Every structure is written in C-alpha cells, then in structure tokens.
C-alpha cells in the first residue's frame, strides 16, 4: 500500500478529524436528539470534504475551491464572497467567450450543470472542466470507500 497515496493521506486526515470530533462531543446519552446528530453530521461531512481537499492541496481547482469555500463559510464572508464572485465572473466570461463560440446546445447545457456540481467549475473551459471532473470523481469514490469502511467498523463495535 502506497504510504503517500491519496487514499492514505485522506485516511489519516479524516481519522484524525473524526477523533477530534469524537473527543469534543461529550458522551451524550444513548439516543442523542436529531439536532445533535445533525450537528455531528455537518461536522463530519465538513471533515470529510476538508480532509479530502487537504490531501489534494492546491493541485486541483476543485480542491482549492472547496478549501476556499470552507474557509469563508463564516460570518466574515460578505467581503470574501463578493471578491470571489467578481473573480469568478471575469474568469467565466473569458471561458465563455473562448469555449462557446458555436452554440452547441447539448454541450453547454450539460456543461453548465457540471460546472455547478464540481466545486470551482464555474470559471473553467470545457477541456479543463472535464479534467477536473475526472479527478473529482476519483477522489469522491476514495472518500466514499473510506467512509464506508469506517462506518462499518464503527457499527461492528
């Protein structure tokens, strides 16, 4: 098993984050309320996304976008989102003029949807978008695999 592969990097980070979450939460009663579960779920999901994005660092646009999104979720986000939106707009208009010269109806409709799905995909031309999508799918499947096994082991106990 490659010690520095995406999978191992993600696993270490994610487990570390999980233990932190577990440690922070006081050991609640045997049946925690839905609100608590929801909070934990948010934290775990964020931990999963974050650890995946960190494992990829800034090599990929989607990881950068995810990290950026996670960092600026906080209340001080108004300035940040404004800046981000203007940046995205400039990039997307440039990409649009470059890539959508011929109005390929089928191509652009799906491309738009894909852009919404893949984080950071708004400001990319189709070529790079497809690249990012491939890497994103690969990372998502890794994430799913590890979450699955983690959940299984937890459940066994």
């Amino acid at each position, binding site marked *: *098993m490659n010690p520095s592969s995406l999978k*191992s990097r993600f696993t270490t980070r994610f487990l570390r984050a999980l233990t932190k979450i577990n440690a922070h939460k006081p050991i609640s009663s045997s049946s925690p309320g839905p609100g608590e579960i929801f909070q934990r779920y948010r934290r775990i999901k964020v931990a*999963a996304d974050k650890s995946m994005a960190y494992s990829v660092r800034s090599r990929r646009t989607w990881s950068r976008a995810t990290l950026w999104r996670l960092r600026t979720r906080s209340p001080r986000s108004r300035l940040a989102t404004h800046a981000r939106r203007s940046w995205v707009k400039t990039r997307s208009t440039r990409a649009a003029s470059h890539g959508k010269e011929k109005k*390929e109806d089928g191509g652009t409709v799906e491309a738009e949807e894909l852009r919404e799905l893949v984080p950071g995909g708004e400001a990319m031309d189709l070529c790079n978008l497809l690249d990012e999508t491939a890497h994103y799918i690969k990372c*998502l499947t890794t994430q799913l695999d590890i979450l699955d*096994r983690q*959940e*299984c082991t937890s459940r066994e106990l």
Partner: protein
Amino acid sequence: MELNAGTGGNGSHKTASERDEVAALESLQFTDEIRRLMSAPGGDNASSFTALLELPAPQAVQLIQSPDSAKLIAAPAPAPAPAPAPNVDDFRGSFQFPFNCGLIDRAARFSVFAGDGNINGNNKSNSPEPTSYNSSASLQKPVKSEPAETESSQPLVSDPTVENRSVKRKDREKVKGSSKKSKTSAKESSDDAEKLPYVHVRARRGQATDSHSLAERARREKINARMKLLQDLVPGCSKISGTALVLDEIINHVQSLQRQVEFLSMRLAAVNPRIDFNLDSVFTAESGSLMDSNFSGMVIPMMWPEVQLNGNRQQYPQQLHLDAFQQPVSGREEVCNSYITPENSLLSYDSSGNSASLHSNQLKMEL
C-alpha cells in the same frame, strides 16, 4: 418493426445502424428541417429514422445527387406525420435495388471530392457533389466529435440516405486519420517555428489551414480524449454514444456520489456516539488485563525506543487500516472484526496518554 420483418438480415443491419445514426444525429446540430423531421413522428428513435427512409426510392437517390438535400428532406417532412406505415412498404421494395455498384461508385467519388469540397467551398470539377457538402459543412465540425463513437459503424452497403451519411462519416474518419499524421507534422513544424517566423503546415486534404481551425481541431481532440477517459471512469458509460448523453450520465454519477457521501456521513454521525463509549471501555479493559500480565515489566524498556516506535506507529496502524481498506467489499464484515484493535490503538493514540499508547504498541507487536 416492419422493416425488420420485411428485410431480414439487411433490415436488422439497418435498424442497428438507424439507432446509431439517430443517436449521432440527434447530438448534432443538423439543419432545422431534419430536426423537425426527427421529432415529427413522435420521438421514437428508430421510427423517426424510418421517417427519413420513407422517402420513396427515386427521391432518396436524388438526395445524393442534388445540392439542396435540405429541400428534399423538408418536402416529405409533413408527409410522414400523418401516415408512416404506407410509405415504408414503398421503400421496402426498393431494398432489392442493386445498391452496391452505383452507390459505391458515388461513394468513391464523394470520398475523392469531399476532401476538396472544403468548408470554404472553393472547389473543383463536380460541383453538385461538393456543394452538397457545403450545406452540411456546418456539420463537419460538430460531427468530427462523433466519429469515434460512430466509427465502428455500419457497412456502407445499405440504403441511399444511410449511405449518404455514412459516406460523410467515412470521409471524416479518413480525414481524422490523416489529421493525426499532420498533427504531428504540425507539432514538428511548430518546433522549428522558433527558427522560422511562420509555421509552415502542410495542408491536409480538405482541411482549412487557418490557425483558428487548427486550434479548434486540437481543442476538440483534447475534449474527446478527456470524454473517453471519463467514460471509462463512470460505469455504464462506454455503451452510450453522443456527447450530451455521456455528459448526462457523468452528471448523474457525480450527483449520486455526492449524495452518498452525505448519506454515509449522516450514518457515521448517528453511529458514532456509541463508538466513543464502547471504544474507551473496550480499551481500558484491555489495557487493564495487559498491565496485569507479564508486559508490565516491559513498560520501562518500551519507553526507551518510544521515539522509534512513534515513527513506526504512525505507519503501522495506518498500514493495517489500509490493508483493511484494501480488502474487497464482500469480505468487509470479517475484516472489520479483526481490525478493531488497530482502530482502537489509533483512536487511543489521540485521546489518551502515553502509557496507553505504549500498550497499544504492544498490542500491535502481538499482532
């Protein structure tokens, strides 16, 4: 389908080719008339193509020869809507045509002149044939993205309209094949471009040599290559032909993956509170037993190589974990049980003190 019943092997070829054709055509930006024609009989792929084929034979043959193919296709457009069935019989009769000789000649001529029937339209002797390409010239660019999918296609020997389109596709395949050779030549020439002020690219047959179209072609090829990779990644996508449908599949796949992540993290959140409690209890129980046994004497000597063990510990539990993760999903249940202890040790490493972690080390040594 009546066609299948009527013409046996030939018909089955045709319907398969019809479906491919229609799939390819649907994703193209064809002329408006064609689109209307496609949608006229009500959206079923095969039947919409039979609408096309319902042109009586002489008209179909004329299609190939005339430059205004669009006009001819538009003409029967209203016709198929009311009564698709009767025309098919007319056409079925024409299947017994000796297609091979005449149409293959025409195909040969097409392949020769398609090259010259430029997008710019500047050419040569047999004007009606190349100009028939001009009407579909706009096709050429988007269709080039399809040749990969439709490449393994139908025998050319079928009916005239299918012939027409398959001939065009074959030409583009030829061009695409030669385009690869000239791509490398273009690259080589661009390597020399540092010395020369201009890049001299040898013109391929029937391809414009603007820098714009070259760049566009390169871009399109890149996009096609990436689409192929994505098709391999996404399960069940390799059968689908057509960019739009493939993209749809990819979008669905990404959405489902994201939803699964949310779902699993929800489950983890629900399951986890129990885990904390259990793990701690399990761990303390084990450590207690270990303390009582002969390991107690080894605690102090173990403190000494702790530094090295730290490094080991980092990798070792992870390796065990990752070995667990490597196991096939079917064997997951059994694996889960055996790898609880490394899980324990990993968690305990973070949550408890030094001596506890040493014990976890010893546990691993045992394993």
